[in-house]
């Protein structure tokens, strides 16, 4: 238990310190190397996505390859509800509540006919859903403006202050606070009756239903919660970008990246999700910074594919996954349970001491 809190605290401290680190870089004249803005836009958002996907894949054990679709629904719900080319204009905070609710509805809509499927089949259905959502958004231009995307979207504002895109710190701390709040909620769920139901379905669905668990309902709830969390991530993403971007940016790559962070960090473990996101997205940002530096120095151009470090991303990523699966399949910070499931274990006698409370 104490180890859990320690890892969590270190991660939180790191996250809190990044804007200060940026200030330091600025003071010594290295402002091009500042990472806070990218961290805010990528690490925090993807951590929230990972949190959502972890509920479905990590706790409930359903392979879900379409989280980007729910992110896209969140993005467009936010855009349509707040942008001034539409009549609704309900503002950031209401949209922050309403868009995830819409996504949860979409999750139930997708889940109710399909959750009887198992394993690979469910994965294919969710994959298909991801493609459909993208296509629909692209092909109803009267509403979604097609590939142009909807912009500008209003930034969040609190009485007396409106967030603005040139100063990233308020966004950063707002998003971090939301992330921490979500981590607490998801951890509460994990340690509750619902978390137990999810795990029992992952371990043995038949035995769980024989104990009176309504498996469909439980899975549907996991699906809806994941959809809502990913929708929330979409809202935050769009509001920081001030645009929905092109619908094709919410494609399979996003879904699979989120899945990869979970696998690298450790399925079913919250600190695993956080650490996995930090490592994968942090590496991504680092490559981007190196590329930018090389370009500033004129050492590379965007034309040369091999000399541009951002293009190494998937190479390194793939290699890391292969090594991970070979040497530590349970992830960097595995949950105690998943470790047991993924490793063929020597029977270890004695008390393992995973209490309920």
């Amino acid at each position: 238990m104490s180890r859990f809190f320690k890892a969590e605290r270190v991660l939180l401290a790191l996250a809190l310190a990044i804007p200060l680190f940026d200030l330091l870089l600025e003071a010594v004249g290295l402002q091009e190397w500042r990472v806070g803005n990218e961290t805010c836009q990528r690490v925090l958002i993807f951590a929230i996505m990972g949190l959502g996907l972890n509920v479905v894949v990590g706790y409930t054990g359903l392979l879900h390859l379409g989280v980007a679709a729910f992110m896209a629904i969140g993005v467009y719900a936010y855009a349509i509800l707040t942008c001034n080319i539409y009549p609704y204009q309900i503002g950031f905070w209401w949209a922050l509540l309403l868009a995830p609710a819409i996504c949860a509805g979409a999750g139930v809509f997708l889940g109710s006919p399909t959750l009887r499927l198992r394993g690979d089949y469910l994965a294919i259905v969710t994959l298909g859903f991801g493609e459909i959502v993208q296509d629909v958004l692209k092909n109803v231009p009267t509403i979604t403006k097609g590939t142009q995307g909807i912009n500008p979207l209003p930034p969040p504002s609190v009485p007396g202050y409106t967030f603005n895109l040139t100063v990233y710190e308020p966004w950063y701390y707002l998003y971090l606070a939301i992330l921490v709040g979500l981590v607490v909620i998801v951890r509460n769920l994990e340690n509750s009756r619902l978390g137990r139901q999810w795990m029992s379905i992952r371990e043995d669905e038949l035995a769980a239903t024989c104990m009176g668990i309504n498996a469909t309902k439980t899975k549907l709830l996991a699906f809806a919660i994941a959809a809502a969390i990913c929708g929330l991530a979409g809202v935050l993403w769009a509001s920081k970008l001030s645009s929905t971007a092109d619908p094709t940016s919410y494609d399979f790559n996003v879904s699979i990246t989120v899945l990869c962070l979970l696998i690298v960090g450790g399925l079913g473990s919250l600190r695993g999700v956080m650490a996995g996101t930090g490592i994968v997205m942090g590496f991504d940002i680092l490559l981007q910074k190196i590329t930018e530096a090389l370009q500033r120095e004129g050492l590379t151009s965007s034309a040369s594919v091999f000399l541009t470090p951002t293009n190494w991303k998937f190479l390194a990523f793939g290699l890391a996954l292969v090594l991970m699966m070979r040497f530590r399949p349970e992830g960097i910070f595995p949950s105690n349970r998943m470790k047991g499931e993924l490793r063929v274990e020597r029977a270890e006698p004695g008390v393992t001491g995973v209490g309920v409370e």
Partner: protein
Amino acid sequence: MSLLDVRKVTMRFGGLTAVNQVDITVEPGQIFSVIGPNGAGKTTVFNTITGIYEPTEGTVLFQGRDLRRPFSRNVAAGIAVIAVLTGALAVIALHLESMWTATVASHYRFRQPFPWGKAWGDLFAFLGHNGASVALSFVLGAALGGAGAFVVWRRQRRTPNVIAEQGVCRTFQNIRLFQDMTVLENVLMGMDMRLGSRLWHMAFRLPRQGREEREAAGQAATLLEFVGLRDRAGMLAKNLPYGDQRRLEIARALATRPKLLLLDEPAAGMNPAESGDLMKLIRRIRETGVTVLLIEHHMKVVMGISDRIAVLDYGSKIAEGTPEEVRSNPRVIEAYLGKEEIS
């Protein structure tokens, strides 16, 4: 009234008849055993009782009632709501852009208040104007949604969780514990359907949830005490010795507060001392008012504790009666105990 009444149940898998016209009647408070050689269809009978299989023919009555969920007014209302929603969704999906243009896009002027009343009026005007196609898409969508909801409901009428809710719970021949959960959590899973904390209680850790969890843990501890696993509550289920895993499965099933407990070969793989303990445990379970239906191979266990025994062979019931009657029944001896060995 008998507690469980299996009437002429037949279960076929393709051309194979696993269970053929079997009748079993269990009275409240009995320990009723089903025996028979391997492959006689005992576990299949259990599976039809607990809703894992739907019997091809015949009925299973529990306390005189069919275990199916009845078609109530609520079910009809739920299906109707789903049908209307899918119908509306179909209308929206098929007329998305023209509806948007007619209602929102044609009225909204940048930075001017939106005339909601007019937009709603135009929505209905639009629906009326395109009456035929709107009605057609609504009917098709509603039919699809309603039919889908009905099919799903029908298939879930007799799932294991419905049957568990009514007070029938079972253990499995090949132990199916939640291996990576603790002993205590396994028992809590059995109690789960009696716990009532809602999503928001759990998400925000409201006091009600904590209270409920503590009470549940207390009750689970009592149950673990009952089966003799009190001091192992914190262990992972997979680390328990084999006999304890069997007992934990019984505790988990008891946690659902069943009226009828189905035990599928609880003594399999146990040594004589362990199966002796198990017999005592089953008797104690009966004393708490739970009726027990048992599949077992250990003749010592079966003959020692059963009030009544049914014998299956090749899917058919060949004998039923008290242990003495069954023991001396020539057909049983021939089919099951062997011709030479009359003990």
